[in-house]
């Protein structure tokens, strides 16, 4: 039996092997993240098939829970680990040809550490361990946002760091309060005894934890750092931050609300918060001129939709939320990567500089279009299946309030469609600027090593859209894993 702990140990070991490998050959360095993520992808898919029936619990140091730090590799954790590895693999291949300047070796070390942190967060069953992995993710992403060292990068990294540091301190206070009350850090153990203490302390801890992890999850009042950080980072990092880092924050918030607390009174609050995030993100995205900032604001909008779907708190609702996590992760990384190659070609991130890209870089433009259509929710792409599940969940609820709320949420989707169609129209129906095409009327396509990962992720979007069963057979167990607190406790603590 292969242990899920290898999902964390192997990338962590490879990350620190990078500087050693660099001494042997500089060319090898770029292959290390690819190797690490390929390993994680294979292992998490293999484990996921087993974990659907029975979660795999890993004890460290042969201590039984609740006394040890343990990993809980349930369907949800492994599904997200597989998603992280898939997107991480694509972006790592892309980065091999696009990240050439600066300290590339440090880039690769930090990149693997970021993904290790993300994998650790989704797999751990220990509250403090969650915090530690969270900090691994945060610190490496602060450094990676500043990787290019230009004015915008440094400024946004500083902003991100200050907000992130306060957020993590608040989360740590929350963890301290919980430890003070329960004397344990195991999430299952706390969840089991959650009703045995005074509600005031619990409420304090919940507020602090949601605020703390909400900074990374970009929940509405806490997301001022996101547009700057996502737009100033190098394109592969923007893709990872938008595709993975936010989702992991959402996972932490969802785990705390559903598994740790299981509070029904919070759900409506979460749904309304999500709706606010959605509307503000989409409205701000609509008025942007910089394509990367537009995509960053659109990420805020999508996070809002995911939160809203989580707030429905039925199995279908949470399935829809997780489906959105998968579809947005895929679509947003395709968008950021394809925009990345276009920006490298034109040297400008203004939307107007994308004119005629459909002729100049046909394949990248096609992938961008598919990603955008999937994000809007057009069939036959995966975004349609995801949004459809959310809408279905609302109508299963038969609550008037939620029907009104989903109406507002779909209004957000219309705004989203408006700005994405505007860009797609520029790509295909505007003439390319003079001198950008050669004599035969063709442009110069992006390098093959950048196109292949974009293409593969696009193919996944289409395949999963045509055949949603590819994901949905894992999504439902994952949703139950998140919602069914009693089963989670029984699996971890036994009995």
């Amino acid at each position: 039996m292969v242990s899920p702990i290898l999902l964390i140990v192997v990338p962590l070991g490879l990350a620190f092997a990078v500087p050693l490998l660099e001494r042997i050959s500089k060319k090898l360095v770029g292959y290390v993240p690819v190797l690490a993520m390929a390993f994680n992808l294979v292992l998490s898919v293999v484990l996921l098939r087993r974990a659907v029936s029975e979660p795999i619990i890993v004890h460290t140091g042969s201590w039984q829970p609740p006394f040890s730090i343990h990993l809980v590799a349930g369907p949800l954790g492994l599904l997200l680990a597989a998603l992280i590895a898939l997107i991480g693999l694509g972006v790592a291949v892309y980065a091999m040809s696009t990240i050439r300047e600066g300290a590339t070796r440090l880039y690769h070390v930090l990149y693997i550490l970021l993904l290790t942190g993300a994998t650790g967060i989704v797999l751990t069953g220990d509250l403090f361990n969650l915090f530690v992995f969270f900090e691994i993710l945060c610190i490496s992403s602060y450094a990676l946002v500043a990787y290019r060292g230009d004015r915008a990068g440094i400024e946004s990294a500083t902003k991100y760091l200050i907000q992130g540091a306060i957020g993590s301190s608040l989360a740590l206070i929350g963890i301290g309060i919980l430890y003070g009350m329960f004397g344990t850090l195991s999430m299952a153990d706390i969840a089991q005894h959650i009703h045995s203490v005074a509600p005031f302390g619990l409420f304090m801890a919940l507020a602090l934890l949601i605020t703390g992890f909400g900074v990374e999850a970009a929940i509405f009042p806490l997301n001022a750092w996101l547009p700057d950080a996502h737009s100033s980072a190098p394109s592969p990092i923007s893709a990872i931050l938008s595709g993975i880092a936010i989702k992991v924050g959402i996972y932490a918030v969802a785990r705390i609300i559903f598994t740790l607390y299981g509070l029904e009174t919070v759900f409506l609050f979460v749904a309304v918060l999500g709706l606010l995030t959605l509307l503000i993100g989409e409205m701000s995205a609509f008025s942007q001129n910089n394509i990367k900032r537009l995509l960053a604001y659109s990420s805020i909008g999508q996070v809002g939709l995911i939160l809203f779907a989580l707030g429905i708190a039925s199995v279908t609702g949470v399935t829809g939320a997780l489906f959105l996590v998968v579809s947005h992760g895929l679509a947003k990384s395709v968008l950021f990567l394809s925009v990345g190659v276009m920006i490298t070609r034109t040297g400008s991130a203004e939307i107007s500089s994308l004119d005629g890209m459909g002729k100049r870089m046909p394949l990248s433009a096609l992938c961008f279009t598919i990603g955008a259509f999937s994000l809007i929710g057009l069939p036959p792409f995966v975004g349609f299946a995801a949004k459809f599940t959310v809408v279905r969940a609302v109508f299963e609820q038969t609550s008037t309030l939620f029907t009104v709320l989903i109406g507002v949420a779909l209004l957000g989707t219309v705004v989203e469609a408006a700005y994405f169609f505007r860009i797609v129209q520029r790509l295909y129906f505007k003439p390319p600027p003079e001198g950008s095409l050669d004599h035969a009327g063709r442009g110069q396509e992006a390098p093959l090593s950048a196109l292949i990962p974009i293409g593969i992720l696009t193919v996944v979007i289409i395949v999963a859209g045509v055949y949603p069963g590819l994901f949905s057979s894992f999504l439902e167990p994952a949703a139950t894993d998140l919602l069914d607190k009693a089963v989670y406790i029984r699996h971890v603590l036994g009995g």
Partner: protein
Amino acid sequence: MTFLYDYVHYAGCFALVLIGLYAVLVKTNLIKVIIGIGLIDTGVNLFLVTTGYIRAGTAPIFSEAAAQGETMVDPVPQALVLTAIVIGVSVLALALSLAIRLYRHYGTLDLRKIKELKW
């Protein structure tokens, strides 16, 4: 008075956190903001240690006094604090190095003057 006597450590920790938060929110010099983050870190670490503290307890090391167990402070928060201190140090180091780079680009550390990126 007994209330104060029992909870004075907590009051101290949260006072530190609040002073740090004040510095982060109000000060316009980046170095002072970073000092504020450092203060928050320290406050949180103190809070963690305090949660495991027993009055007149000994260190959680295997020794004569600790053999009874009742007079030993809780070792888990101390382990947590060690980790949290390391994390805090690395965040502060990164923050300071970013501050150096920021100064090179803008020639100032006044946060009111460094705002090219907006909503």
